[in-house]
């Protein structure tokens, strides 16, 4: 066919040529994520299915978090990316490099200076503020997976708010080990309705989502589910009346770099059979060291104080 000058050609209808769109995803992919995020905020803890696009990193390496970040981000943002609490972890460095390459946004290692934080397996130690978004990467969004691998049945259980099997699992741990031995990904009830996996953050980090000032988006790219904990929303780890939820015991651990106590620590085995401890939140550690040298802002208030007390009084028994 021949096109007259006024007829748009296919080339005209395609986007203006840049090697890539801003933030890599095209508008249609972003809209899918954006519609999904809005639904997720309106239904705290409910897993919204979405059409997860392939992005230029492998599935299972934060593609869900990355799609959320790319759909949220704009030129005014400041981005922080962490993996296991560290900004310099190779995967965090890779994701930060990619987003930065595709947007040119400013990046930071300071949790309270970022507008947008993408994280794998940690919530920062300093209290996040009201205009901040935390995007958590989620390998497995289904808290019921270990008790019901069939996702159709699990969905029905969520619909019925039928979490009996989950309670039974915790009870069986109690009987077998004398305590609940769930490590990370501790199942938690959001807004009194949906049980979520908070992603494999340690138990230390789960309370930080409760009545938080910031917005948390949890996105599983491979499993194609996205859910959210809005600011000021109840998040309650499942606990029995007589067996309270317990965070990881940090008592007696001192960060060998900063001298800080009562924060989530990495244990570093030593040749002589002992172990050193360091802050898992590397950006917080950096801030403490730099502030001590008069080279940067002072660290802000943390969720747990130096005595290990959580900032919402009475929340942890």
């Amino acid at each position, binding site marked *: 066919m021949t096109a007259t000058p006024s007829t748009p050609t296919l080339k005209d209808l395609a986007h203006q040529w840049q090697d890539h769109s801003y933030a890599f995803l095209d508008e249609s992919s972003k809209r899918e994520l954006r519609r999904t995020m809005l639904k997720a905020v309106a239904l705290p803890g409910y897993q919204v299915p979405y059409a997860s696009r392939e992005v230029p990193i492998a599935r299972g390496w934060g593609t869900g978090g990355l799609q959320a970040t790319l759909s949220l981000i704009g030129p005014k943002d400041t981005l922080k990316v962490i993996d296991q609490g560290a900004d310099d972890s190779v995967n965090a460095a890779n994701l930060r490099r990619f987003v930065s390459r595709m947007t040119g946004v400013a990046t930071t290692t300071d949790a309270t200076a970022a507008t947008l934080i993408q994280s794998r397996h940690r919530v920062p130690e300093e209290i996040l503020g009201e205009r901040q978004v935390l995007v958590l990467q989620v390998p497995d969004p289904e808290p019921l997976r270990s008790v019901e691998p069939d996702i159709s049945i699990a969905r029905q259980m969520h619909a019925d708010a039928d979490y009996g099997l989950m309670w039974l699992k915790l009870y069986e741990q109690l009987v077998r080990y004398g305590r609940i031995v769930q490590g990370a990904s501790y199942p938690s009830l959001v807004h009194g309705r949906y049980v979520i996996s908070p992603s494999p953050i340690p138990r230390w980090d789960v309370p930080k989502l409760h009545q938080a000032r910031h917005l948390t988006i949890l996105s599983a790219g491979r499993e194609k589910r996205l859910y959210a904990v809005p600011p000021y929303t109840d998040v309650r780890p499942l606990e029995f009346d007589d067996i309270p939820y317990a965070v990881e015991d940090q008592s007696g*651990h001192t960060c060998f770099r900063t001298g800080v106590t009562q924060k989530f620590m990495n244990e570093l085995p030593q040749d002589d059979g002992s172990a050193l401890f360091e802050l898992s939140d590397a950006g917080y550690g*950096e801030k403490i060291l730099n502030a001590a040298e008069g080279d940067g802002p002072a660290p802000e208030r943390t969720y747990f104080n130096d005595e290990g007390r959580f900032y919402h009084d009475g929340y942890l028994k």
Partner: protein
Amino acid sequence: MAYVAARGGENAIIESEQLFHDLNGPLTAEKVRVIMETVPYLLDRVMGEASLYAPELAALAIAQSGGELYEAALLLRAYRTTQPRLEYAAVTEQGEMLTVRRISAAFKDIPGGQVLGPTLDYSHRVLNLGVLTGEGAVRHEATPAPEAAQPTYPALADWQRKVGLLPEVTPDTRTGHSVPDLTREPLLFPPARAHELQGLARADTGGLLTLGYSIMRGYGLIHPTVNEVRLGYAEVNLTHPATGVAFSAGRVRVSQAEIVTEFAGDSKTPELALGFCATLGWNEVKVIAGGTLDMNMQKAADHGEKHPAHTPEFVLYHTETVEASGFCIHFKLPHYVTFQSALDAMRQVRGNPQGVNLPGSEVPA
């Protein structure tokens, strides 16, 4: 010098990528051209799994990934994500496809005839060592048939429907945007039929073979017969979004298989049941395995049985090439936070919450 949390990681990953490419030699247009011209079945496999028909880009992806096919498929899929969807192609009917190979195991001869076409099925699997010892290039030239074969052939299933061996189907008349699209919608269960077929079309070839073979070998509900395997070229017929003029954007290589089984339906009037799989590119293993899985997934409900390979959720999730391979390699990522959390829980049970470094903490034997 201030302490910086983002210190070594970034340099390390840049250098490790350099090293990978360094060991594979330079990436050149010539290399891409050679790949494109010499290994069409490899391109087909990658394009099928990527669900993006673009031989030149597939050759580039293969060259750029050094032949790591999971990486190549991911490169293409990630590229696909960035492309706008301007229009939906019209439905291609089996009977309209330019067919170069079409065989049936169910009948000695079929309407339109068996067309053997290009295949290695009857080759002697003997390495052509002479090529290496200086006998020069080996050229194969097929002898033209005295009469040109007909370009199109009807579907065998149509004949079986006409004679009542297969149940009549109500044709799905949806077109364009109203056809469910797995790349634009989440996969939910039970899956839309279109989603299931699309999932098989872009599945990992090896994954479909493994699960399909498990059924063929002994875990199947029913015995598969290859009703028809077909290789051909399908027109990509589009309507110009602005002018409304219909045109063909070109032809793509496609393969498809119909798999049938006997004694489906009720016991008084048993009939055949049909499984189907099609994919971009020529890949007979994939469509035969996929068609067999499709038939079993459809029939599993009737049999009330639940072998994993009969279950859409199991088959479609676990053969998703990019997801399965990505999750597999993600276990290389550090998991020390989750490990630390589990260690804490374990030490609590052992009555040694602070770990090994505290004097006086005794680990029970």
